[in-house]
């Protein structure tokens, strides 16, 4: 093998490490503030889900399955699946995972939809954001865990931070695409009547882009769920942690139960968010 000449050595890793160090020393307060906000939100969601007893939540999900997905059978199936999770003994952990996912999605949408709108409005923003989004999505998700750990220490907050970064691209992308592909004449009609950009956005672009945005929400949610499991590696309590423990103890059965619970959550969340994109 011919060695690659050592003279050509671009010290990207060193630069990034130095950058991280700088961030950590100078923006410590900033990250503390972010961490605080994230923590409050996720704790609030967690409090709600842990407070709701299973015999209320299960019928609620059943009802959502019936009304939103459109078939009463889906409602029944959702309820049976949740009862299965309970029977594995993972009810509490499932609720913690769910809270973490929903809080992450909440932040992702809070950032992602406005960014997507901005991206749709300006070609320059699009050309800047596009490669960043590509990078965010192809980067192995583990990589986010390290800086998250350095900024926020162990626990739920870094897990969520990594989750948000990992899960936000689809909703940005699909908001952008959705708005850009809105019928040009509908937008022009609105403008021709003297609508302000804001009126055009709320009267025409967002309503017509809604199906696309909802597909983005669905994808973001599914990615958040996948990442939250990774998040257990840095100390977020939940179903993912059970899987990790089972792996380390080589307990196939238990690992399978925990894994299946995650799959069940995924199915239910997917069907419910998917239903938003289909309705007009």
């Amino acid at each position, binding site marked *: 093998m011919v060695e690659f000449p050592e003279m050509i050595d671009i010290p990207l890793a060193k630069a990034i490490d130095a950058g991280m160090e700088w961030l950590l020393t100078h923006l410590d307060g900033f990250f503390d503030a972010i961490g605080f906000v994230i923590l409050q939100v996720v704790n609030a969601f967690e409090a709600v889900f842990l407070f709701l007893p299973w015999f209320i939540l299960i019928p609620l999900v059943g009802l959502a399955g019936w009304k939103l997905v459109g078939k009463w059978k889906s409602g029944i199936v959702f309820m049976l699946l949740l009862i299965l999770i309970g029977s594995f003994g993972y009810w509490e952990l499932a609720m913690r995972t769910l809270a973490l996912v929903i809080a992450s999605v909440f932040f992702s949408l809070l950032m992602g939809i406005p960014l997507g709108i901005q991206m749709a409005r300006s070609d320059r923003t699009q050309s800047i954001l596009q490669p960043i989004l590509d990078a965010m999505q192809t980067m192995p998700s583990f990589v986010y865990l390290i800086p998250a750990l350095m900024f926020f220490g162990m626990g739920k907050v870094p897990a969520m931070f990594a989750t948000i970064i990992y899960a936000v691209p689809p909703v940005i992308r699909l908001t952008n695409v959705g708005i850009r592909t809105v*019928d040009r004449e509908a937008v*022009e009609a*609105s403008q*021709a009547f003297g609508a302000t950009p804001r009126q055009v956005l709320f009267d025409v672009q967002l309503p*017509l882009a809604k199906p696309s945005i909802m597909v983005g929400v669905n994808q973001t949610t599914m990615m958040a769920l996948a990442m939250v499991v990774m998040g257990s590696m840095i100390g977020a309590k939940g179903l993912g942690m059970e899987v990790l423990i089972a792996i380390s103890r080589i307990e196939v059965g238990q690992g399978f139960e925990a894994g299946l619970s995650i799959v069940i959550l995924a199915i239910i969340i997917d069907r419910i968010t998917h239903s938003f994109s289909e309705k007009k």
Partner: protein
Amino acid sequence: MAERNIRNQPSEDLPVRKDEPQVLIKDLWKVFGRDPKRVLKSDLREKSKEEIQKKTGCILGMKNINLSIKKGQFYILMGLSGSGKSTLIRNIIRLVNPTAGSVIINGQNVTKMSGEQLLQFRRKTFGMVFQHYGLLPHLTVLDNAAYGLKVRDVPKGERYAKAMRTLETVGLKGWEDYYPGSLSGGMQQRVGLARALANDPEILLMDEPFSGLDPLIRRQMQDELVELQEKLQKTIIFVTHDLHEALKLGDRIAIMRNGEVVQEGTPEEIVTQPADEYVQEFVQDASPAKVLTAGSIMEPAKVLLYAWEGPKTALTLLLSNKRKAAFVVDKNHKLLGVAKDESLAKLLDKGEYIEKIPQSSIRTVPTVSENTILEDMFSIITHNPYPVPVVNDDGRLMGVVTTDQIFESITPAEGDENG
């Protein structure tokens, strides 16, 4: 134009059109692409669309357009695909900003307006209708029709009341609560029209509004638009690439090619005197019957009877001209009808002295106005043995048109065909 110009009785006036220019377009250019001003500054500006595109990559959308459109005019923009019609109509309302030149509407320079001014101006001046309707599918027909008013923050009650009225005008009463998706194309375009009219705009911009419709629905919509325009007298700028539509609707037509206006004039001028081969090609299958008017080919009546001169004089006049019948007018030159030699002779047979030709011996005949196009006179000449009298709004006889004259003027002149 439809049969409204054929009148047996002279009816009340068509509203008179004011003559002030409402839309004035001066030296308007649009170049799409990077750094479009560069194209205008250099000597490239004299070059053709293809050359500009090859040398700079810029696309010439409009080249040095100058037009003047009067209030109440039905103005047609016509040309092949890509000739710049939409670009021009979009520039007028600044959905596209021109590269150079100005659009002046009611004396105000639209091209110089700031963002806020422009929004206000669009709200009160324009209504626009789109080829694919441009409706909002998540709103009901009523909400769609009321959209322009909503943009202007008109209170809900008033907004809906007005929208209801315009929906009724376009024949969509009873459809308010449906969604556009459940309506046929023709009906969706009515919603588009209602939405544009609800604002009571001075100027209607219509970009190929009927292109997407079936031929029958299309003709029906054209007829209705003609009728509506009779009532509303808006200034309408209308894009089409259908010559028949243009001739049927337009007061004036501008023909565009590769971003330039190659000819501008009345339908009659365009069809009878095409400026170049491009226009010629456009109008070649246009029948002159659709553009020539009675006024343009009429001749004075050769024999005219004066009612007050009495039947005897009239009969003498007929005999000396070897005629069996002729038109009769009163002292104001107002047309009374046709008198035949037999009926005049019958009067005289009675032996009494008759001072005036009585109305009972005069047959009324169908008349046309000077604006009636020849095509609309065909039904008259097939049912009527006499030449067709042309009268003005007061019923005065302006001239007559014979069947021969009509056919002579609609058959292409020798040499045109092969030349």
